[in-house]
């Protein structure tokens, strides 16, 4: 069903969140011929920019921050949408289909797209200490870069994708870097023991100290500035700069009273609908993936784009269930990892091309006899060529548990 306004004219669309998924939704709507009014509401003061370079090229200084802009002013203007920056949404009225903002705007619409992403999780008390950072926004990135250039000893809390990338980038800037977290190796949760073991070797070779396998209990400080990170073993890792990269929480606090189902994201059906006329997209959306038969929420750049295209199609009545093969990449030193599909912790992993010791390989992940994922390490093309095996695995009837 396509949407119209009450008089049968082209519908008014409101997108909340002015980043990758929100902007792509607008572009896809226009590309598909939607002529009705579109408003994009964002809480950040900046025009839409891209986040992956924030832990890589912008943090290292290889790119000027402007280069992370998602679109030029002219391209944004050509979209003929109203952009409202620096004014957070504070409430959604599902039945009346309207959003209220902090400054008091009331924005009614025929279709509302929730694209508010996620916010970094924090350690208790970290806000009270200078020198402690999270990394999600451009402002976060510039503040962290400033401290990295002035500092000498960095501790990264969190051995996930983001923490591992920040450790690598900071190391190339010449800092003394320690990476800490509860798991045994960098990105162990995301890529499993075999590949995270290779990552551990790589980081060690490059001079990053790994203090893994112990939880972090808190921060130490003096005179309002951080001095270290306290581990569960009571050991303190000294630091003048700390980055906390321990995951993120969907930015749904503004939806608390909306009546929408919120459970680790905005819960949606297989077409990314949270309610009639209300959609969620990108990092904030947890939708029913029909190929997997369960709710899925993805925090990656490709999903932001692909899901936005699916939501735009759904708004225009051309939708179908959204069943992507997830994809993400990460760059650490000279290693470029590409991950297609899902890499469950208990998967059987085989190197199917290349050579682990040469650090150029493709690993295949199988679970219950089906290929669920493929990982390429400096073999992007070869990894992509095996994507079809994952598609075939998704199409096969789901095993019963």
């Amino acid at each position, binding site marked *: 069903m396509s949407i119209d306004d009450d008089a049968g004219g082209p519908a008014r669309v409101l997108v909340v969140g002015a980043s990758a998924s929100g902007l792509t939704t607008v572009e896809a709507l226009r590309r598909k011929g939607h002529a009705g009014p579109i408003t994009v509401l964002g809480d950040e003061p900046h025009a839409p920019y891209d986040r992956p370079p924030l832990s890589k090229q912008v943090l290292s200084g290889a790119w000027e921050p402007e280069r992370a802009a998602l679109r030029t002013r002219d391209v944004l203007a050509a979209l003929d949408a109203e952009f409202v920056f620096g004014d957070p949404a504070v409430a959604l009225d599902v039945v009346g289909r309207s959003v209220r903002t902090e400054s008091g705007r009331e924005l009614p619409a025929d279709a509302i797209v929730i694209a508010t992403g996620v916010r970094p999780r924090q350690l208790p008390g970290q806000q009270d200490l200078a020198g402690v950072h999270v990394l999600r926004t451009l402002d976060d990135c510039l503040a962290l870069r400033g401290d990295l250039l002035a500092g000498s000893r960095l501790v990264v809390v969190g051995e996930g994708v983001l923490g591992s990338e920040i450790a690598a980038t900071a190391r190339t800037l010449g800092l003394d870097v320690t990476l800490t977290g509860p798991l045994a190796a960098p990105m162990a949760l995301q890529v499993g023991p075999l590949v995270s073991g290779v990552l551990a070797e790589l980081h060690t070779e490059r001079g990053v100290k790994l203090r893994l396998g112990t939880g972090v209990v808190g921060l130490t400080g003096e005179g309002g500035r951080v001095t270290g990170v306290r581990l569960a073993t009571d050991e303190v890792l000294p630091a003048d700069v700390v980055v906390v990269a321990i995951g993120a929480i969907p930015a749904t606090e503004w939806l608390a009273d909306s009546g929408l189902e919120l459970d680790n994201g905005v819960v949606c059906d297989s077409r990314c609908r949270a309610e009639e006329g209300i959609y969620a997209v990108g990092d904030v959306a947890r939708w029913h993936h029909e190929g997997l038969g369960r709710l899925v929420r993805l925090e990656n750049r490709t999903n932001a784009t692909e899901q936005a295209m699916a939501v735009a199609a759904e708004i225009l009545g051309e939708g179908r269930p959204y069943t992507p093969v997830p*994809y993400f990449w990460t760059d650490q030193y000279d290693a470029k990892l590409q991950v297609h599909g899902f890499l469950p912790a208990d998967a059987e992993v085989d190197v199917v091309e290349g050579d682990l010791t040469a650090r150029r390989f493709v690993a295949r992940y199988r679970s219950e006899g089906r290929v669920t994922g493929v990982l390429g390490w400096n073999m*992007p*093309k070869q990894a992509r060529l095996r994507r079809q095996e994952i598609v075939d695995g998704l199409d096969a009837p789901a095993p019963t548990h």
Partner: protein
Amino acid sequence: MKVVVDEEKCVAAGQCVNAAMDVFDQREEDGIVVLLDENPSDDLADDVRTAAAVCPALAIRIEE
């Protein structure tokens, strides 16, 4: 339609190849995009626009 790719921005995702195989390929050694056809014919235009839209690195530009 004229297509321009920025090899320096490309993150070797290969999404463009999935979208428009006749226009994009990837280098064997590092996966960076290879433009097979700078001036794709009209029947490929939609696929090329999709490729530019799905490229996560914004490395594909279309000059109409």
